[in-house]
């Protein structure tokens, strides 16, 4: 098939000019795109308001698919339940026994904890979630791992707030629209989270690899103390997350740490809650000093790579104690 003859200019001056103008416009558009791209790589939050409006528009449709998704998961689970009901029942009964014992132990620990905190005069402010919403979508075509949340600045959500599911950490709010917000998932390769091992204080960073797994990098190099199956929880360094929330389980050991699997997978969650920044004053303090050119919270995307520096000092200090 030949292209339409109208697109061959021939001797017609008008056709030649319009063809030329087409090329000129397309070239100018490409240059404009390159400029905008450079601007948004330099200042990722520059177009956040535009994106916020766009995601507000998509969110209602996403809420529908989110409901369908959670519904269908329930169907599959109940079908699977019929096949292994008997053995599962016995297993669950045994687990329940153990859980009851552990619960009693936890009560004792809790009481002791309370007493010790009373001695130290620490006041544990139980933070209430700012909002509870569904994850309504994600950037499924891009190399970035962002998710869309069905609640925005109208519910009091601000950039930087941690997003948790009932199982553990999902990510951090990156941009907010009016009724939707964009969440940086832990698996994004720009996401860095200070963590520690749950049972002791081995401190590390959990970095997204971009392929659904986390790379755990130990702060103190030396003999690698990690073992497969270790649970990593947030250490609270950096001030965004409250300490002790489950993040990942080590799946493989590497020389400088390990490769870990997420505890809370965004695709398997139904509702997530957005919590206030755990130590908002400390975060503001940490983000303010560099030159003062970027106001705090204005550039959420470069924040994770820059956060290791202050967090590393606190992590190192904690490790030395």
């Amino acid at each position: 098939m030949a292209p339409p003859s109208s697109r061959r200019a021939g001797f017609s001056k008008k056709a030649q000019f319009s063809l030329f103008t087409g090329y000129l416009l397309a070239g100018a558009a490409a240059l404009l795109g390159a400029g905008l791209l450079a601007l948004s790589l330099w200042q990722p939050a520059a177009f956040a308001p535009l994106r916020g409006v766009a995601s507000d528009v998509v969110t209602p449709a996403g809420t529908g698919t989110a409901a369908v998704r959670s519904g269908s998961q329930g169907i599959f689970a109940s079908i699977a339940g019929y096949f292994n009901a008997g053995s599962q029942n016995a297993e669950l009964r045994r687990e329940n026994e153990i859980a009851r014992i552990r619960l009693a132990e936890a009560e004792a620990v809790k009481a002791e904890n309370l007493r010790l905190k009373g001695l130290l005069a620490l006041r544990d402010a139980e933070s209430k979630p700012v909002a509870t919403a569904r994850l309504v979508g994600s950037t499924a075509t891009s190399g970035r791992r962002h998710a869309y949340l069905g609640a925005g600045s109208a519910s009091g959500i601000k950039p930087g707030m941690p997003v948790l599911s009932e199982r553990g950490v999902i990510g951090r709010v990156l941009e907010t629209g009016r009724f939707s917000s964009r969440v940086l998932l832990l698996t994004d390769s720009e996401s860095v989270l200070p963590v520690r091992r749950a049972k002791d204080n081995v401190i590390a960073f959990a970095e997204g690899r971009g392929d659904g797994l986390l790379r755990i990098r130990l702060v103190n190099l030396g003999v690698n103390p990690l073992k497969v199956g270790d649970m990593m929880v947030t250490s609270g360094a950096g001030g965004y997350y409250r300490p002790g929330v489950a993040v990942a389980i080590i799946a493989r050991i590497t020389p400088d740490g390990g490769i870990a699997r997420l505890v809370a997978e965004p695709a398997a969650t139904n509702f997530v809650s957005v919590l206030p920044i755990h130590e908002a004053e400390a975060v503001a303090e940490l983000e303010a000093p560099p030159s003062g050119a970027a106001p705090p919270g204005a550039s959420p995307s470069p924040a994770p790579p820059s956060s290791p520096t202050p967090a590393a000092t606190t992590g190192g200090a904690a490790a030395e104690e």
Partner: protein
Amino acid sequence: MERLDPRARSDIYGLRINRAPDPWRVRSVPYASIMLASPLPVLLIADTMPLLPSFGFLMLLGWRMVRPGLLPLWAGAPLGAFDDLFSGQPFGSAILLWSLAMIAIEAIEARFPWRGFWQDWFTASVIAAVCWLASLVVSGASLTPEMLLVAAPQALASVLLYPMIARIVAGLDRFRLSRARRID
């Protein structure tokens, strides 16, 4: 005549007498379909890896290949700007890449004016693959080997989806040109 065969006086675009295509539909369907396809993959929760190719870009390629000359050369820029709002890429990446893709197709078409389905598929595949790699590079994330590995199915899917997209575009084109307006 109609009693014998109801479709006697019509072709694939509908009745031929005192009917004309709707001018609104003729102009808006390509843009509307591309702009509807852009936010479609957002509805999927992809927490571990990119799961789908950019439907908006595939639709653009489809319209450009199936109906050369319908979209102006600069159409990649506004449509790309719209796609950037949803795709999670830094704003401007699709404006740049889609514009370059349109220019590249134009250049290829000037070089090889006579072409068929297989050549179209080949061109679209090469351009989709180059755009896939380029959009990973400019995504703002540090490019890890693991990321490339998990994104590879996306490139494969965009190559394999082209024939389907071309059929969809052909169907939409038939809808676009169907004689919906009655001339009295």
